[in-house]
C-alpha cells in the first residue's frame, strides 16, 4: 500500500475531501482578503471615495438607513415584488412544466413558443411594459414574471421528462390508473428537481427585480441605488448590493430547508 496521502496531495487530487476545518478557514480567508483589499484601496487612498466607499462608510450608511426606517421600507417593497412575481410564475410554471414534460401533446403545443420567448431578452420588454402597464408594482411584477416563468417552464419540463419510465410502468402493474401515475408517481418523483429549479430561478427573480426597480419605481433596493447614484452616495449603492446578496443567501437557505422537509428521501 502507498503511504497516506499528505494534506497537500489531498488538496490537489480531483474530487477528494479535505478536512472541514481547513475548508472553513479557506472560506473565511477569501472573505477577509476581499475586505482587506477593499479597506487597503479605500483607507490607503488609492481609490477616491466618490467611486469606492470605505467599509466604514457602508456600515455607517447601514446604520443611518436602519435608523430612519427607510431600509426596512425599501427591503419590504423589494421582497414584496419579488415574492409576488416569483409565486405567480411558479404557480403556473410548475403544473404546466410537469404536463409539458409528461404529455407529448402538451410539449408539441407549448415548446416551440416557449423556446422562442425564452430567448427574448426580458430587458427589451421593459419599455413596452411601462407603456402598457405604467410604473406601478404591476409593471415590476410583470418583468419578474417574464424573466422567470419561461425558464422555469423549460427546466421543470426537463425534470418531469427525466422521471424514469420504469417507475410509471411499475405503478401500472400495481394497479395505478394514468391519473394515479401522474399524481402518485410523477409528481412526487419530480419534487426534489422542482425545488432545485425554484431555488435557482429565485436568484434570477432578484436580478430582474433590480432591472425593474432601476427603471420604474419609487421604492425598493434598486430604486435607492439609482437615487444614490444621482447624489454620488456610493456607500448606499454598496449597501443596497450587500443587502440583496444577504437576502438572496437567506432565500437560498430557506429553499434548502424546504427541500429537506419536503423530500428527505432525496438528500
Amino acid at each position, binding site marked *: 500500500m502507498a503511504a497516506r496521502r499528505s494534506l497537500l496531495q489531498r488538496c490537489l487530487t480531483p474530487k477528494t475531501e479535505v478536512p472541514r476545518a481547513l475548508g472553513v478557514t479557506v472560506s473565511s480567508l477569501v472573505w477577509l482578503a476581499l475586505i482587506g483589499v477593499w479597506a487597503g484601496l479605500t483607507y490607503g487612498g488609492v481609490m477616491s471615495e466618490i467611486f469606492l466607499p470605505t467599509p466604514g462608510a457602508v456600515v455607517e450608511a447601514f446604520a443611518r438607513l436602519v435608523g430612519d426606517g427607510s431600509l426596512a421600507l425599501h427591503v419590504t417593497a423589494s421582497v414584496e415584488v419579488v415574492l409576488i412575481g416569483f409565486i405567480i410564475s411558479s404557480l403556473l410554471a410548475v403544473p404546466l412544466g410537469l404536463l409539458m414534460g409528461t404529455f407529448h401533446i402538451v410539449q408539441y403545443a407549448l415548446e416551440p413558443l416557449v423556446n422562442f420567448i425564452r430567448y427574448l431578452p426580458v430587458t427589451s420588454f421593459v419599455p413596452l411594459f411601462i407603456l402598457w402597464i405604467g410604473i406601478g408594482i404591476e409593471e415590476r411584477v410583470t418583468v419578474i414574471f417574464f424573466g422567470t416563468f419561461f425558464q422555469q417552464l423549460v427546466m421543470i419540463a426537463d425534470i418531469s421528462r427525466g422521471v*424514469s419510465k*420504469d*417507475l410509471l*410502468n*411499475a*405503478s*401500472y*402493474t*400495481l*394497479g*395505478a*390508473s394514468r391519473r*394515479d401515475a401522474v399524481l*402518485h*408517481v410523477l409528481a*412526487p*418523483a419530480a*419534487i426534489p428537481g422542482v425545488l432545485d429549479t425554484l431555488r435557482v430561478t429565485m436568484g434570477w427573480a432578484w436580478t430582474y427585480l433590480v432591472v425593474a426597480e432601476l427603471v420604474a419605481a419609487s421604492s425598493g433596493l434598486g430604486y435607492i441605488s439609482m437615487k444614490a447614484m444621482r447624489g454620488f452616495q456610493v456607500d448606499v449603492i454598496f449597501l443596497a448590493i450587500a443587502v440583496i446578496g444577504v437576502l438572496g443567501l437567506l432565500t437560498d437557505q430557506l429553499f434548502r430547508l424546504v427541500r429537506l422537509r419536503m*423530500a*428527505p*428521501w*432525496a438528500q
Partner: protein
Amino acid sequence: MTPFPVASARPSRVEAPQAPKLHIRDVRLEYGARTGRTVVAIEGISLDVPDKEFAVVVGPSGCGKSSLLYLVAGLADPTAGEILLSGQPVSGPGPDRGMVFQSYTLFPWLTVRENVEFGLKRRKVPPAEREDVVNRYLNDVGLAAFHDAYPKQLSGGMMQRVAIARALANDPQILLMDEPFGALDSQTRGSMQKLLLKVWERDHKTVLFVTHDIDEAILLGDRVYVMTARPGRLKEQVAVSIPRPRTLDMVMDPGFIAVKRRILDLLRHEIRDDED
C-alpha cells in the same frame, strides 16, 4: 349453486386438462413500423403456462424475452396474436399481473411499508387489511424490521425483495419477473433464489420468469422455454423434473447437469446460427 361442490369440483380436475392460466398464441411484436425500418422483436410465439407453474424463459441477450414479459404485463401491445389470462384477453397493465423489474423500481419517496402498500391503496383496500397484508409479505421476504426505511437505505438485494413483496401484496394471478436478480452480485443472487424458492414452494403462485442465467432458470423453473436470437421465437421447451424442495447445491446433481447440457446445446446452436 351446486349442492355438491366438493364432488363436482374433483372430477373436473382429473378429466379435462385445466385451461392454462396464461395463454399466448402466435404473438408477434414489431418495432418502428412508423419509421419504415421495421424490426421484428418477437415472431410467432405460442406458449401456455398452467396454473401454479413456474415457467422460465431463457435466451441470448436481445432475443425479445423481456419484450414478451412487457406484452403479458400489458405495457406494450403485440402487433399480432393473442394473450389470455384465465381466458380473458389482456388489454393494458393491471394488478392481476404483478411485475418485478430488472432495474430498481421502488418509489424512493415512500418507505418500504408504503411501497408494499402502494398497490393496495390504489385498489382501495381498507387500512386494517393493508396492514396485515404488508406485514405478511414483508415477513416473507425477511424485511419486517426495515418497514420504515427508505429505499436508498437498502442494498440492491433488499430493494428487489421489497419489489417482490410489493408485487405479491396484490395477490396477482401471475407474477412476471424480468431478470430480477440480474443486477445483483452472485452471493446475493443465490440468497434471492433461495428466498424465491421458499416462498414459491409454499404458495405455488404462477410465475413467468425471464433470465439469461441457465443455472437460475433450471433451479427455479418447472419448465424452461429456450428462445432464439432476434427475431425471438421459441426454440424448444424443456421440462425440469428435479424434485422440490430445491436447494442451491442441486446445481451439482447429475439430473441438473443433464438439463443444463441440453439447454446449453440449444443455445450454442442458436449462437452458431446467428454467426452464419
